[in-house]
């Protein structure tokens, strides 16, 4: 079938783009018309669809990449091996090994179909890591929803946050647990701004021998393309174009088919077989079939090596009969990978996949000319130069920076500090997330040496970062965490983004890890609106501020725009995934308090910058002076803290974040099931509840205080010691552990059952 663009005027061009669902803008349709007028023919429907995929925001980063290249991606770190250009980043782990990071969003599918959307999000991120030749070792799931107790009427076509939350958690649980990769970190955040657009981000870390790293590009002309894994069906049609437009009230009806169906029990043997074929050096290239399906994988793999490809759709294993050529070509059906293999190795590759009962089909081969030529049932259905198809347009869209006028509320100190602290502990942002965490298998593979819930058995508390020991014969570990406070980013994109990197780094340092690399999942509204893009630019600058001072790079990531609907945009949500190196996991530190009579210290100071804090929220006041960060201070404190940990001075450590110092101390006390007696200076609400950056509470082994204080000089502030079974702060807070535990442990269970 042809798309009649040669004779079409502007109005008609837009109509063609709309009717076919290709999702292309007018100026793009015009470019296509011009290209095909030189060819003296109209494009086929397959060609138009392929262009729609390749030039979508989701695949091409046409709006974000020019900005990111300018302000964020210039940091160079010696440990980096592959940065940004492939499906995942690769970073040196030790002399022989590298680790691989990938981080993505699965927002739109999860808003429509939370269970399947979240599950296939995991499927996709696993493939991104596997296609570099790596064994996945950990999954990370930061989640953002509307308030669980939301009682007002929902916008049309929107599902209740509680339904979305339980569906997403179940999807992650059922896929992640079945595929046998532990889910070790993440966050759960609630805000009105996510009611119409929940945000589901998913990250994966893998480990690979350096000599087994493989790339998403073919070897030489003559190599075969082998499609392995699941059958191709009508699920996942137009996933990327769906992700590159706003949601609306009919999205479910119109785009339900954009959500794929996941099968972890096909993925599990697919991973084994791909890794085995790679380790036996039978492959020249490997790429996952994600957004855009075959249409993106074949062309991109050939183009990345400077060649072209010929392929036929005749042998592609299908889920159903009667699929149109274009549907086969762009379907995003799950559990598929593309391999490029030199002819002598074909049989051996086939045998490996047969052993695992995983379908394995030759569909085409690499040709020297940079052309993509696809046939189906004897006809050429696509023939385009890859220079045209793969090189999408890049846009410098207009953006504006919002004005932020300072607001500092007048607020008298609270009458009852006990009541405030209990309210903070039961806030959905602070309370125990064990309802979620225990549903995920966080220790399959047996390598999770610091777990997301830690402390005395039966008295767990939240940790700062999980630690994986990825190699059997080495005590070196990978610390993993993900953070962002969207409330802050909404108030001030620059400092909010800077704070997210600060929090990631201090979480890594808290367990004894050197911050080593970052990945970002940048979730925003519609970038065609200048104010939204203005937020994006300032976020990128804020991320750069702290990352460059720490000398670590964003090695991979994802931009998700159009998280917006008729009821507005989400709060800008730059979720940051951080990986740190623990030189010897036997020296790692957890947050739970250890022993009576040990001393507690605060590293860093609270400032009167309480905009966007939990304390303001609970007291129902608004202020917009969010915490700033001084990256040099952060860097120096991390260096000193890591020295203190390696010398064995620190026996527990927890970063100060949501809820401030008082909350931090309570969480540590709960994990050790022990009380504390603490005193701070007079400005009580700031001291106890401010969420200023670059701070930790540490427990120092009795008798080692002098050595500890000498290391930190003026940055360490003595707070008190570990004693009894009550939380006692100055003369304003006096609570039993039982009261504290009930406030912190029960809220999510009450809401979710």
């Amino acid at each position: 079938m042809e798309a009649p663009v040669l004779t079409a005027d502007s109005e008609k061009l837009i109509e063609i783009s709309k009717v076919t669902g290709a999702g292309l803008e007018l100026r793009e349709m015009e470019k296509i018309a011009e290209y095909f007028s030189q060819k003296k023919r109209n494009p086929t429907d397959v060609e138009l669809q392929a262009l729609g995929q390749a030039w979508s925001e989701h695949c091409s980063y046409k709006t974000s990449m020019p900005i990111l290249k300018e302000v964020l991606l210039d940091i160079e770190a010696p440990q980096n091996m592959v940065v940004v250009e492939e499906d995942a980043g690769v970073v040196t782990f030790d002399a022989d090994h590298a680790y691989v990071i990938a981080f993505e969003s699965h927002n739109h599918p999860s808003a429509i179909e939370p269970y399947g959307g979240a599950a296939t999000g995991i499927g996709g991120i696993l493939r991104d890591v596997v296609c570099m030749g790596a064994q996945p070792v950990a999954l990370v799931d930061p989640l953002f929803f509307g308030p669980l107790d939301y009682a007002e009427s929902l916008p049309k076509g929107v599902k209740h946050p509680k339904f979305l939350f339980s569906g997403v958690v179940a999807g992650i649980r059922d896929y992640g647990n079945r595929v046998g990769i532990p889910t070790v970190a993440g966050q759960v955040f609630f805000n009105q701004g996510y009611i119409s657009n929940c945000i589901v981000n998913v990250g994966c870390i893998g480990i690979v021998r350096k000599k087994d790293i493989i790339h998403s590009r073919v070897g030489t002309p003559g190599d075969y393309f082998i499609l392995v894994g699941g059958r191709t069906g009508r699920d996942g049609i137009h996933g990327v174009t769906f992700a590159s437009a706003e949601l609306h009230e009919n999205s479910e009806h119109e785009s339900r088919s954009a959500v794929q169906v996941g099968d972890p029990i096909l993925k599990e043997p697919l991973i084994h077989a791909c890794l085995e074929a790679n380790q036996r050096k039978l492959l020249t290239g490997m790429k996952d079939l994600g957004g855009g399906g075959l249409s993106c994988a074949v062309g991109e793999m050939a183009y990345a090596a400077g060649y072209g490809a010929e392929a036929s759709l005749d042998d592609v294993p299908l889920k159903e009969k009667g699929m149109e050529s274009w549907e086969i070509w762009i379907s995003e059906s799950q559990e598929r990978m593309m391999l490029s293999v030199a002819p002598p190795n074909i049989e051996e590759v086939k045998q490996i996949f047969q052993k695992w009962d995983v379908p394995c089909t030759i569909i085409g081969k690499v040709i020297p000319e940079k052309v993509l030529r696809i046939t189906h049932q004897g006809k050429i259905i696509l023939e385009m130069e890859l220079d045209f198809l793969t090189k999408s347009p890049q846009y410098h869209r207009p953006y504006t920076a919002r004005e932020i006028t300072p607001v500092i509320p007048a607020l008298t100190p609270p009458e009852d500090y006990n009541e405030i602290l209990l309210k903070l502990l039961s806030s959905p942002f602070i309370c125990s997330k064990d309802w979620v965490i225990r549903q995920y298998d966080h220790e399959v593979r047996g390598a999770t040496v610091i777990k997301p819930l830690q402390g005395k058995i039966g008295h767990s508390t939240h940790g700062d970062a999980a630690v994986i020991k990825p190699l059997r014969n080495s005590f070196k570990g990978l610390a993993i965490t993900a953070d962002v406070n969207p409330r802050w980013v909404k108030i001030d994109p620059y400092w909010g983004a800077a704070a997210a990197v600060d929090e990631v780094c201090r979480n890594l340092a808290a367990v004894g890890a050197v911050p080593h690399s970052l990945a970002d999942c940048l979730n925003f509204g519609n970038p065609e609106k200048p104010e939204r893009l203005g937020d994006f630019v300032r976020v990128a600058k804020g991320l750069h501020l702290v990352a460059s001072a720490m000398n670590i790079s964003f090695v991979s990531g994802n931009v998700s725009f159009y998280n917006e609907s008729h009821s507005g945009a989400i709060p800008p949500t730059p979720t940051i995934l951080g990986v740190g190196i623990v030189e010897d996991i036997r020296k790692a530190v957890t947050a739970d308090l250890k022993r009576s009579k040990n001393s507690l210290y605060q590293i860093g100071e609270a400032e009167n910058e309480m905009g966007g804090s939990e304390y303001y929220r609970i007291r129902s006041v608004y202020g917009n002076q969010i915490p700033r960060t001084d990256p040099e201070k952060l860097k120096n404190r991390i260096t000193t803290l890591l020295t203190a940990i390696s010398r064995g001075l620190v026996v527990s450590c927890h970063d100060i974040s949501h809820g401030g110092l008082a909350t931090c101390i309570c969480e540590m006390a709960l994990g050790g099931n022990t009380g504390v007696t603490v005193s701070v200076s007079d400005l009580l609400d700031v001291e106890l509840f401010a969420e200023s950056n670059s701070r930790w509470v540490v427990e120092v082994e009795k008798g080692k205080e002098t050595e500890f204080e000498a290391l930190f000089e003026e940055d360490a502030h003595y707070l008190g010691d570990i004693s009894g079974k009550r939380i006692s702060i100055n003369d304003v807070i006096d609570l039993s552990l039982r009261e504290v535990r009930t406030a912190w442990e029960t809220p999510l269970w009450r809401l979710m059952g």
Partner: protein
Amino acid sequence: MGNPIVEVDGMINICILRIEGTNCEQETYDAFLELGAQPELVHLKELTPQNLFDYQCLMIPGGFSSGDYVRAGAIFAARIRSNLISALREYVDTGYPVGGICNGFQILVELGLLPRVSEHPEACLATNDSARFECRPTLLKLENHCAFTQKMDIGSVYEIPSAHAEGKFVSPLTEELMGNGQVIFRYCNPEGEYAGYPWNPNGSQYNIAGIANEQGNVFGVMPHPERAFTIYQNQDWTRRTSTDGAHGRLVFESVLEYARRL
């Protein structure tokens, strides 16, 4: 990690059986390797009634074999049944040790090898009382010995974590099993008492976590000893002052000891 502490005279070959969805095979493999045995990951398709007898121990690791979309373990068991069941019964009769961890336990029950040889399952690992998958540390008290526990002490409490959605042991034979020493591990609290949820994470009858056949050479357990092979896998290891307490390791040491004496 470290040197193997078990000195083995002849190599002990361990078959670690897997199909699609088996996912605790690598850590089970590593545990045996660490102790100086010769483990092998064997796909069900590669195991025959003949080569089964090349191995001195058969292990069925945890996971979600075939997805466990019907009763957990049922499909894996049906596939074993189709060509291996008589060889497997002979293997058991000969006295070779057979162990099933988590999904492996479910499979041994579905196969009719636990609690005793039967054509149809005589027990069930039912959905947890909480109706959801739960991953948490659990404490087990050793009640009776079997081929997998000789290096442990009856009455002692061992820290071995659980992670399952279907682990509630239910059987019409439970009273009998309790009476004749086939109950090997029971869930307990830190004081060693048979306590309720969350110490008993699934609602098992009599807090049963693991059982053996009457001969003591077929053993099934829901918690994961391979996840307690070093102390650094325990939730609370940063609280400890000694490096003792890698309790899962004892299970592997015990069965190697048993296999060596065969």
